[in-house]
């Protein structure tokens, strides 16, 4: 009893406010103006507020209905395994379509943007909570009969339009619907809003989708090309690094050098190589060297007020902000920083003796504390703000005498000594100790929390003895990054009788 004509079944997966509704309306309008009976429906509800939502469209040729003398009964929701086209406005939504069984290898064409809009769980992780893009892409490719995927958000931005226009263009480009390009474009015209940029985005997407070759991701790993510096001292450092390291480790060490000459001076970068040499004396190559090289560079370039002021005042930064906020040539831009230096940061920036005195003092300490109780907004683009920050950045010359430097230097030396100590007997554990630097980051409260967690882990590996293994330390580090209040870490430490 199968009638020959079948509805075309299209599911659209989008996030609330991402234009899924516009896209569905376009497809309906396109169908209705070109000899089709169209039906669409959705369940927006609370998902309108940033949640994931599905729109479902069916198109049926009016001529077939006329011939049969009956109206088709169109469905209000997709049946898994019975969908011709799935449009997804983002990569994880494409994954969701696969998860829901809407994309099947026997018939579904999946048209999806490959950019990511991160889910809240990915965003709030204290470290890296992102889903793996490659897994999602592989999933989309494996599940679909045909996968048309590229960064449509970027394409939309390039044509000054919205992603729905790019998806609509890609849909037209695949030639899956029985409508001409002109019919598609007429639909956008009838919409009446932002027609010109939409048509531009549509056109580019149409071309792109109709000539899209299967995506390949062959990344050849080339040998490290050695950079050159006109400065003899820096050049000597580069050559010294090249002699001692190779491959991935060399890449990291060169980045470390680049960071540290920028952060302080060539002498400081030389100290970096000296420190690395000590570790290298024990283990050559391997993961440990790489991790120490990475984390040592990061620790030595700890973020103090001097560094922040330096980065904030650079000309390249002003350019970047202009670009990021999309200030047009005729527009003026002012930049306001949100800073909250507290007593601690002020003392940290002082010469060590003075800083210690201030922290231990009575009235001066309270006075500074009161002064620093509120955050301040510094307008870097004003003369006053700029000069103040430039002055701060200029304290770089005396950084080695600051209280903060003394503290950080002590921690770095202790950390290196422990890596050194362990690396002989258990290089894997030493690698994990190196990685614990990752816990110490941020500013203010965040930095204090990081230090606290680091101290807890440190006493754990010191007291753990033979029970402390690389796996356990990695697990504890994950626990430290699981929540802000240290609950997971406390539980984990207790569980292993290390608390």
């Amino acid at each position, binding site marked *: 009893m199968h009638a020959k004509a079948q509805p075309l079944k299209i599911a659209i997966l989008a996030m609330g406010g991402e234009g899924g509704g516009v896209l569905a309306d376009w497809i309906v309008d396109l169908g209705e103006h070109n000899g089709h009976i169209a039906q669409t429906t959705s369940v927006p509800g609370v998902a309108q507020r940033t949640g994931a939502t599905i729109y479902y469209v069916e198109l049926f040729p009016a001529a077939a209905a006329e011939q049969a003398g009956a109206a088709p009964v169109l*469905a209000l929701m997709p*049946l898994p395994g019975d969908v011709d086209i799935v449009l997804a406005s983002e990569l994880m939504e494409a994954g969701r379509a696969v998860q829901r069984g809407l994309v099947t290898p026997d018939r579904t064409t999946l048209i999806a943007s490959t950019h990511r809009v991160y889910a809240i769980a990915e*965003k709030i992780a204290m470290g890296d909570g992102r889903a793996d893009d490659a897994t999602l892409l592989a999933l989309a490719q494996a599940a679909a009969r045909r996968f048309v995927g590229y960064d449509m958000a970027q394409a939309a931005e390039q044509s000054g339009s919205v992603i729905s226009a790019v998806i609509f263009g890609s849909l037209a480009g695949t030639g899956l619907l029985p409508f001409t390009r002109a019919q598609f474009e007429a639909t956008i015209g009838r919409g009446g809003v932002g027609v010109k940029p939409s048509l531009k985005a549509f056109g580019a997407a149409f071309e792109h989708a109709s000539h899209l070759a299967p995506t390949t991701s062959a990344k050849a790993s080339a040998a490290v090309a050695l950079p050159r510096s006109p400065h003899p001292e820096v050049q000597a450092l580069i050559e010294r690094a090249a002699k001692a390291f190779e491959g991935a480790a060399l890449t990291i060490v060169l980045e470390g050098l680049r960071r540290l000459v920028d952060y302080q001076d060539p002498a400081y970068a030389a100290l970096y190589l000296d420190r690395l040499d000590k570790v290298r004396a024990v283990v050559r190559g391997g993961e440990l060297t790489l991790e120490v090289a990475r984390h040592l560079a990061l620790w030595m370039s700890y973020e103090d007020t001097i560094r922040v002021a330096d980065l904030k005042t650079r000309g390249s*930064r002003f350019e970047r902000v202009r670009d990021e906020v999309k200030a047009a040539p005729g527009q003026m831009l002012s930049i306001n920083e949100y800073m909250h230096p507290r007593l601690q940061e002020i003392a940290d920036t002082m010469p060590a003796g003075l800083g210690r005195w201030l922290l231990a003092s009575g009235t001066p300490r309270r006075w500074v504390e009161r002064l620093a109780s509120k955050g301040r907004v510094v307008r870097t683009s004003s003369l006053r703000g700029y000069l103040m920050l430039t002055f701060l950045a200029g304290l770089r010359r005396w950084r080695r005498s600051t209280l903060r430097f003394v503290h950080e230097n002590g921690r770095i030396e202790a950390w290196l000594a422990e890596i050194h100590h362990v690396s002989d007997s258990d290089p894997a554990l030493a690698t994990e100790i190196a990685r614990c630097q990752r816990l110490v980051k941020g500013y203010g409260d965040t930095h204090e929390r990081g230090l606290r967690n680091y101290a807890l882990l440190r006493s754990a590996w010191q007291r753990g003895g033979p029970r402390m293994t690389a796996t356990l330390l990695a697990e504890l580090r994950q626990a430290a990054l699981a929540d802000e209040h240290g609950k997971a870490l406390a539980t984990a430490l207790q569980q292993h009788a290390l608390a």
Partner: protein
Amino acid sequence: MAERSFVEEVKKLRLGQGQVFHGEGILAVTKALLESGVAYVAGYQGAPISHLMDVLADAQDILADHGIHFENSASEATAAATLAASVNYPLRGAATFKSTVGTNVASDALANLASGGVTGGALIIVGEDYGEGSSIMQERSHAFAMKSQIWLLDPRPNLPSIVQAVKDGFDLSEASHTPVMLQLRIRACHVHGQFTTSANRRPAYTLREAMENPRRDTSRIVLPPASFLHEKEKVQQRWPAAVKFIQERGLNEFFSEQDDDIGVIVQGGTYNTLVRVLERLGVADVFGRTRIPLYVMNVAYPVIDAEVLRFCEGKRAVLLVEEGQPNFIEQNIASILRSGGSTTALHGKDMLPMAGEYTASEVLAGARSFLQRYGRLAASTTVTAPSEPFEIAATTVQARPPGFCTGCPERPIFTAMKLVERELGEHHVSADIGCHLFSILPPFNLGNTTMGYGLGSAGAAALNVKADKRAISVMGDGGFWHNGLTSGIANAVFNRSDNLTIVVDNSYTSATGGQDILSSAAANPTRSTGHAIEKAVRGVGVEWVRTVEHTYDLARMKAALKDALTSKQSGPKVVIARSECMLNKQRREKPIVRQAVAAGKRVVRERFGIDADTCTGDHSCIRLSGCPSLTIKPNPDPLRTDPVAAVIDSCVGCGLCGEVAHAAVLCPSFYKAQIVSNPTAWDRLGELVRGKVIGWLQARGAARRARFAF
């Protein structure tokens, strides 16, 4: 002013005889009301029927032309009680709300209405918020229809059937002197389709006539002895009248009734899903021409005994497709078959899931097992791909729960609560219904219970004893006016509570689509707005009231909350947090700003940004915000792997990011950019001078770094 404007759609309400209407289901209902000669419409907004309210609000001139009165009711109870106008007078009236939550609120009025019965047609249009996309408890409106004996229509989800159901509903109501409930599922409300219109009808009898010629009939009022008579009248007169009308008008439909000795009974609302499934199984075609007999119950209640017996006559077995639980219809049909001496086997929840939405896959599985059981399908028939062809880890495809919009003024309230929590410890938080309920989700994770709209404060009523901490309640402005003023605030005054209630005043009922309410700030040409919540709160006797006018001011927000939680003064504490819903604000302001820029006026646009080179990727800022515009991106630093925070283009510059950075002492990575369009000559002069000095210093710094760079 509602979130969506229906100015274009409203024109469709004027279509005359024989024209074709294209549009959404719920708008078709609105048109059907006009074609039915309705005299008044009342309702309370809520998905999926908000658009019905919005379109009527935008159609005031058309309503006036047709002599129709439209009320934005204070609550669903008000809307249902409004139907009292149809008790004594031959006035057709309709009330609409979200169900079952709205029906819960309305049930007192509905029960009174149904007891005395009606003279003019009374139609209750409920948007059944059940299944995917629903935001409420999963229950059935069906129970209300049964308990109050209100007839329940559940039409096939296509526009002609829905429109016809509205018209039949009024006729049925008048023929049986009983209110009629029209139930539309979410997808049916939002379905886009077509139907051929009829001419609009002015009401035959007007409200003015009723007011000027009052009629009274004590026997229609619910007080003994009339109430005892009402119950008898329901079963002895109104029910038989309804059954007769339903049969004569043929409201329920039979398809291929005699074609087989098995059949399927289905609620009208699930018909399309069933037909698609039968088509996939090869026993029907795309036009719904089926080999398996179907009995489509467009009237879900009452069940018509004679029709059920007629359909089952000579059939070995029938399958009942009844969504939701308890399985009222199945129980009813089982009883009819048993009493009627029928031997037909009845299947239903044995082959279909007991609970949950009847999705296409569920109905497919149920229909397949039914057809296989009776040999209409080979046992091996599979139609679609296996349902779980790909193993997908939960970390790969993560949930994307709803959250506060970009720049939402409610977000800083919860940020402040988080910060106060750091100082005073965790508190019991009684949540309410509205956008603010998103606080229970990440990143805020605040809220212990929610007991219903406007009941945030009431939900903490028992936690009113001497303790070292106070309970916190949250209530929206919508819930406040709906009932929270009395059920929560006045209740707290009367019972001498010391607890804190935070009233979130964003000028609209935002979660339902931004409709105006009493305290809305904007002038509304047809409604009275501008009534301050603080006045009402003080009016019922609260002495400790603090209004925070700009919720983004975290320091003040925090101070108000902390004071309320630590104040020595006894009696309820109320903090009113006022800032306009950003969605509505942007919709209003964006075009104005665009025009101003085009006209060459000086306009300052603000937005936030993050310096990736100072961000260390801890994401504390996101954990205190959750703004969609505050996200993460890959770390541009080759030494780091954790993604950095980033502000994307959708940022509206609400200011919270900066406030959080200050209040929580987070990090100096945030900056606020002010972009000035059409700067004045004075602006340009200043820029020139600053540019020279700053440019020179920057060039000097760059030159120094360039010496070492490689």
